[in-house]
């Protein structure tokens, strides 16, 4: 049975200890629904590992392996090799996932290695834009201007001073046949992308945007609303890179973007950009760069790159 095109079966059980309104909780339900019964999951250290397996309990209803912070992609490589030896590689899906800390930073070398070796697996990053489990430290995924405990905003600081790492193109440069960005606010789109990634042979990647009420400082009920705003303002455009070619899902018109303030104002991590006084220069910088990024994506798609 399906509801909204998503399988009704739940492989991520309730009773897990994620915060109320956790975006990554929605992400896990989507990943496991797309994976289905014949799957092996492996995950790095991170929020979801901690909240899903308070020993001796586990939220998983699928085989799930926890590795260290850096190596879900390596474990997945080993599982793929074992399945190959058993002649079962076409029967069982291998899915590795981790947060952005693991994916963009700590596990990046291992992820790159697994993609270079070309194992038949899917890697999903649930992207909540900082190390949330250890207390909101900046990661390579934390966006420009966001205040975290290791990029605190203050008199001399506007929060994180570097732009978010472009993981999508870095992974695509490995020659992956399918790389997609998705958001928990668009569940059907995300489900389709996860499913496509899993069904595509070779190493595939999905960056799944998942807001964090605790780390971004907003009320839990706003998780999906904020994820939607991130797409409508162009902060996290949804697109796919299929065999190296771009396909933009949304937004697809730079002139029709909602102003980025609509997104920034919803979160405590950007509060310093508006109070005590509005930091016009920084907001304009963010706005312009978002427009440039989207223009570039649309141009690449249009020219067939």
């Amino acid at each position, binding site marked *: 049975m399906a509801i909204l095109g998503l399988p009704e079966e739940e*492989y991520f059980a309730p009773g897990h200890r994620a915060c*109320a309104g956790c975006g990554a909780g929605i992400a896990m339900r989507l990943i496991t629904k797309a994976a289905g019964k014949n799957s092996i999951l492996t995950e790095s250290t991170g929020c979801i590992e901690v909240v899903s397996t308070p020993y001796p*309990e586990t939220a998983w209803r699928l085989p799930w392996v926890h590795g260290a912070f850096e190596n879900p992609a390596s474990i997945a490589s080993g599982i793929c090799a074992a399945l190959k030896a058993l002649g079962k590689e076409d029967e069982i899906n291998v899915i590795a996932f981790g947060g952005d800390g693991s994916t963009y930073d700590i596990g990046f070398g291992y992820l790159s290695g697994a993609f270079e070796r070309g194992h038949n697996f899917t890697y999903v990053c649930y992207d909540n834009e900082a190390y949330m489990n250890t207390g909101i430290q900046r990661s390579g995924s934390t966006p420009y201007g966001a205040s975290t405990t290791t990029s605190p905003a203050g008199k001399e600081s506007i929060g994180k001073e570097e732009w978010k790492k472009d993981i999508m193109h870095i992974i695509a440069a490995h020659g992956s046949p399918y790389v997609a960005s998705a958001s928990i606010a668009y569940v059907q789109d995300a489900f389709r992308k996860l499913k496509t990634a899993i069904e595509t042979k070779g190493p595939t990647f999905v960056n799944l945007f998942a807001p964090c009420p605790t780390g971004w400082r907003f009320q839990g009920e706003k998780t999906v*609303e904020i994820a939607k705003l991130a797409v409508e303002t162009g902060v996290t455009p949804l697109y796919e890179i299929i065999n190296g070619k771009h396909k933009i899902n949304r937004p697809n018109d730079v002139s029709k973007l909602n102003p980025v303030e609509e997104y920034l104002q919803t979160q405590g991590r950007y509060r310093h950009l508006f109070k005590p006084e509005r930091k016009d220069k920084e907001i304009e910088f963010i706005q312009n760069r978002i427009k440039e990024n989207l223009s570039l994506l649309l141009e690449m798609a249009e020219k067939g790159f």
Partner: protein
Amino acid sequence: MIDFEKVKQKVGDTEITIGAVLESKGSTSNTKTGAWRSMRPIVDKEKCTGCGICWSLCPEGCIKKGDDEKFEADLDYCKGCLICVNECPQKAITAVAEEK
């Protein structure tokens, strides 16, 4: 398949499994996280069209479809995040404060 009885080991007074291996059967559902809740979502069954959007966006996965094809949160697990209240296109779900 792993015989879970065979991988048990006694450490002091507690029995643990070697390598912290557990059977994948979603045993976190033994813990009723509903106790975390300060606000409770109440569905107006007259307004609910059974679209399932609340079901798809619940981080707990605790919203269930009833025999009447309408959706309702399982209050044993609902943490009261109220995403369902915020996202319901029919505004059929309201938040009510839990009483002590």
